[in-house]
């Protein structure tokens, strides 16, 4: 039995038909073509599929698509307004990521944190990204960049 749902994806209203058992992650990736949320474990352990649901980070592999009817979903593609966020620019400047597979999820977790806590400490950042597994970096380069981004505006980095 198909359901017609409508939700806001990165600022744009997207009506779509889904099955009752379709998970949000698969709908985003295969039906809507938004590929930044990654498939890492499909059981909520790794955080690679993180998206913001009404501004709060959720694991999209654990959310049924029908649950987001009428809600607002943001992926990393949707967080740029006038170019990259300061966090993204600092992550580039400090070469914090390695393989980058976890990056979209961690960037969203950091964006959510800063939205709620504009001057987070390193401990706050560690707590905020503790649901996002990274096997490459040892985490600290990411934590340092997020803290640096809110303390000092980046001197260079990618442009819009």
């Amino acid at each position, binding site marked *: 039995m198909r359901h017609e749902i409508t939700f806001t994806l990165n600022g744009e209203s997207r009506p779509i038909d889904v099955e009752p058992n379709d998970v949000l992650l698969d709908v985003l990736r295969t039906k809507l073509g938004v590929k930044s949320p990654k498939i*890492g474990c499909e059981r909520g352990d790794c955080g690679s599929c993180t998206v913001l649901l009404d501004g709060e980070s959720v694991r999209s592999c654990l959310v049924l698509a029908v649950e987001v009817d009428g809600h607002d979903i943001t992926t990393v593609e949707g967080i*740029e307004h006038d170019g990259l966020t300061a966090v993204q620019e600092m992550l580039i400047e400090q070469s914090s990521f*390695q393989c980058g597979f976890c*990056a979209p999820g961690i960037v969203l977790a950091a964006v959510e944190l800063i939205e709620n806590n504009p001057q987070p400490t390193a401990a706050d950042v560690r707590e905020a990204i503790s649901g996002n597994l990274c096997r490459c970096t040892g985490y600290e380069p990411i934590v340092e960049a997020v803290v640096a981004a809110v303390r000092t505006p980046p001197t260079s980095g990618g442009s819009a």
Partner: protein
Amino acid sequence: MTDSYVGTREPRIDGLDKVSGAAEFVDDLDFGPDLLHAAVVESPHAHARILDIDASAAEAIPGVVRVVTGRDFPYTFGLYMKDRYVFAQDRVRFVGEQVAAVIARDPKIARRAAAAVNVTYEELPAVLDPKPARADGSPLVHPDLGDYPHVPWFFPHGGTNVAHWRKTRKGDVDAGFAAADVVLEDTYTVPRYAHCAIEPHVVVAKQNQAGRLTVWTASQSPYIQRDLFAEALQPLGLSHQDIRVITPYVGGGFGGKAGVTMEIIGAALATAVKGHAVKLRWTREQEFYNTYQRQGLRARLKVGATKDGTITALEHELLWDAGAYVEYGANVVNAAGLSATGPYRIPNVSIDSLCIYTNLPPGGPYRGFGYSEFHFGLESHMTRLADELGIDPVEFRRINAIREGDELPYGASMNPSGLREAIDQTAAAINWGEEEQSADPHVRVGKGFALFWKAPAMPPNASSASFLKFNEDGSVNVAVSGMEIGQGYLTAMAQIAAEVLSVPPSKIRVETPDTDRTPYEWQTVASHITWSCGNAVHAAAVEARERIFDVVHSARGYEDGSLYLEDEKVKCDTDPDFALPLRDFVITGLEMEDGTWRGGPIVGSGNFMPEFTSAHSDPETSQGGHPNVHYTVGAAGVVLEIDVETGKMKVRKAVLAVDVGKAINPAMVEGQITGGILQGLATVLYEDMRFDESGRLLNPNFTDYKIPTSLDTPAEVIPIIIEVPQPDGPFGARGVGEHTMIPAAPMVANAVADATGLRITSMPITAEKVALSLLEAV
């Protein structure tokens, strides 16, 4: 000259791709509505004969396109030994092995249909431990072992489970032990581990109507994959020219995406549904049990030394739980068997490294390639031996540390290294010799120290190549086939080309491989890529620079040898006013007074192969060859807090000093240190694989196999870069990727012993194990 681009903290050239979501991984590529999806039928038994496969129920499910079995693909494959099967043939050898596959219109249908394939088995006795597997009368995992093709440096023992036995003999160990004042012997055990790259393995393959097979893989090894696909699928009429492997960004490798594992299934399936792309993506569970696992090890170690602290002899027997297929893992065994002395000058050496088949998932390459495993026992043992001699463990290591020109276990001589500097700087950074306390009365603080070394394990002729071209705006494309697995390879290659050409790395594009468009690279493994491919890129850039000079010489008449590059311009020693921007002529050439032109598009090519290596040696002693190109060495130390009530441990400080020859990009090297230390600490503090008595992996997920989160990091990590140049490396560089996790386990074991007096000889050293050991010790 102006700014140098080598040795600087250039931001990663792939940074923007990765933080913006632009980076595409295999699973992100679009193949349109015709894409088919595959699911495999897996063995529920560790060892069984396949009596019958009935796919009729699966084939009847709407949406199922095709079911294939081993009958469709009766082919073997393997990197160093052809012992692995595309699909199981007459028997299965581990729980989870692929027996058949369903191709369907939809992944859910494929999974449902795979569950409907009915396979009848006759169970066979399984061997799950290398010790009984080695004993006479053990069930044989591979009765046909004696017939498998393999590289000449493997010595399989047909009719047994010994797939390879590397023997290294130097001097006279009996005399060495007789001359020792103290001889210490013990056994150390290391379980299996999982790589846990966050991106699972995925393959998409399509054989088009014209017969061309294109395979997109999450891989460290595009060219090796093409080679193994061509070899395995040769009976179908496919050769290298018919196969194209494309590898976009990879979400972590750590050795787990080296060689070929599940990708062979995708390549084979594509030939069964010609004209359609078919995708196979491993679940997290499959990622754990059907790619490669780090092999388990039981190591018996005996080391003797005289009262003055000189090591006189070492005997090391390494018994590896190599799993059901060892086509790659046997080379891990081989590498350890050549180097299991560690970075010490030891006159009398006997090493036996045995690759034992078991009915557990295939072992294979994992960051450290055998060295992480044997260093646990070796570096635990060195501290214990020093303690018995009454010599400070750091001083003991200074006394015995290997030096340039020393004879290696197999006879060749040691390369230059900054090992002593690494020892001194590490000891200073952890305030070695000074006791530290905790304010908490239940917490004791211990310090641990360990050395490490590792050489790339490669065929003697493993090689790299590079193409380089200029564009109209003076920017450059460098084409290489090494893989960006996170280490910063693309950036390092850009920096090397930048240094030669005076073009900033931000104007140099280096993309991920495509075997049709980027030149040969053996594999991105062994921590050799900066060294090997860096040499190829350097050669290509030098060739391009020579062509630039040729054009300027012929068009403008400047003397050979007077031209140089600076700030993206050609300049001249003898004419300070001459400064010709590269963008003005690297495509168009230079115009002469008569209106004719000289030059044309500037390109360069380069390759590199070490020409001094050889795998030929005496099978009984390993003497006579030159199997390794060089060793990267270093030291590491830890300050560890242990709660003696709970066993809970917290790393107060971790220090690692590594001699990288030359850090092409110090920020990338520090990234390897910070990340590698945590991956190493995880193997000692948190992780291990648990199997039940039937050979089934009990913890194939991140709930039960805990890898560190951002809350599990050391309070402080101090990376120390030492630079004693590698004579044949690009700008003196040698490899560093794997080394940073090697010393983590023994340094923790030594710190636990320092704090509590407990010597734990089995990994992991979890809080639970420490707490129970403390209780027993009371």
